[in-house]
């Protein structure tokens, strides 16, 4: 699950950067950048953190 989390986080960044190459529209780039940030945050706070929360000390 940690590998999946890392992959999602990096994938979000790749989406943001891909906007530089896929479109020259400022709005398009802004949308892709925001989407990428959202995906990376999802990977951090939901996927990766979810893995550690399952093993949290207060659940034992």
């Amino acid at each position: 699950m940690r590998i999946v989390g890392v992959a999602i986080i990096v994938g979000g960044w790749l989406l943001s950067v891909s906007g530089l190459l896929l479109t020259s529209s400022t709005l398009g780039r802004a949308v892709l950048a925001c989407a990428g940030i959202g995906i990376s945050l999802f990977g951090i706070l939901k996927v990766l953190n979810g893995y550690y929360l399952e093993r949290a000390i207060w659940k034992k």
Partner: protein
Amino acid sequence: MTSRVTQIRRLLAILGVGAALWCAAAPVRAEGVALTEKDLASVSGPKTDTIAAQGDPGAELTGTVNDVTIADSKKGLTLADLANQAGQNKIAINFVWTLVTGFLVMFMQAGFALVETGLIRAKNANHTMMMNFMVYGLGLFAYYVCGFAIQMGGCAPIANLGGVYPLNGEHVLQLFGKPWGLFGTKGFFLHGATYDVGVMVLFLFQMVFMDTATTIVTGSCAERWKYSAFCVSTIGLGALTYPLFGNWAWGGGWLSQLGANFGLGHGYCDFAGSGVVHAVGGITGLAVAMMLGPRIGKFNRDGTPNAIPGHDIVLVLTGCFILAFGWFGFNPGSTLGASGNGCLRIGSIAVNTMLAGCTGSFAALLYMWMRYGKPDASMAGNGLLAGLVAITAPSGFVNPVAACIIGWIAGILVCLAVEFFDRVPKIDDPVGAISVHGVNGLWGVLSVGLFADGRSNYGGSWNGVAGNVKGLFYGDAGQLVAQLIGISTLVGVIFTLSFLWNWLVDVFVGQRCHPKAELAGLDIPEMGALCYPDFQLKAQDYHLGAQSAAPSGTLTSKP
């Protein structure tokens, strides 16, 4: 005699200003005065005998043509001598400015140490203080060995510091027809040609910035981080993670070139490091705090959070004052000079810094007062720091009204973020470092793309793009996109690098202390000595069920 001296001073002033303007390639504000060697023949300073007999109580005879260094005494004073002296004076002013502001930033380590130690329980005070103390040495060494080279090895030229021309190696990848600067290659161990006066000044200033980032992590991981793991983790941050992002933003790397290569404003702009320093530190803190898990007693079995109060609010607020003081080095010092290339904006930058800290603390105080009925001291302190963190990136690009707004939003944001991390992802951050530095670091980066007013001019261009930096509210949406890509890089790449490095540390060293050590307090198990041996600490079971008791870690005098 006095009028003669005044004439000489006027002449020198005209020459000095003319030469400085020429060196800085700044817009010419007045007609230049053409001088010849013949003009200089009639210039002479006060007689040394006169000064020896009378002294100079009125400061009229000191600092004259007599003090201009003459290259060839046979020729006497030449135009070249005057031009060289003017150039050296400019660089000297910038060196002194950058060094002194760097010293101020170094002193922020003491502020961080006090804030963090005050916000944790007394039983861990030695451990937390020692993390803050050793982060300086560990980070410095890692940065000296390779961090500085990776970050700034290809940053030349920096006109304010005399060029720093030995730092001329940037590893560039050609991808999709564009150059992507990845890391610097000059300056490892500061040897060879980088044994250079300008490089030394730059190293000192950048090193204390890096140390600020590393000390943020110790706050978010306090009270359960194994000391050996902290040491290894810090070295990784100082040697690799921080320098990489520093290169992309400040060292001529690909983020700074988004404007030149993709037409996005002036590229990623981060004047003093909301992103480079604070967000990198806060995001690394997030990665390690997540991995460590919460402190024992932070969450109940149903997942509801408990407040674990710090042990000394005096330390916390004193630390905040020290940090606010040090921030006058952090932001105004980031001009890397006080002379030439628009550096006279240092006053505006200092005022912006002051205002954002003020509105940040004010907003946090009001928020907590309205929400919980009391003006919370620690959150007021965190509000001050949040405002300062947020204004760090835009401080050189915005006006005072925008600084107030940025600080105000930061003060609210830090309160919301602390509650969010406690209640939603349940990430334990004992001092609020992730909220203060991570969240508000990102807010600071974003705010450049919104509030930069296009009035700042640092030598006519920024990141290789002519003109002044403007945000969305002043007509440049592209700048906002550049900032968003910077934010994406922070959460997508820097988080990942930090996570992977600390994962390795977890596998080979182990990140978290033994639960027994944590319950006992880390001072004895980890450090071998109590911070407060003459005081008796109250029972440690408060957060393990007996919640009606007094807060753990509260200091009481031994009877």
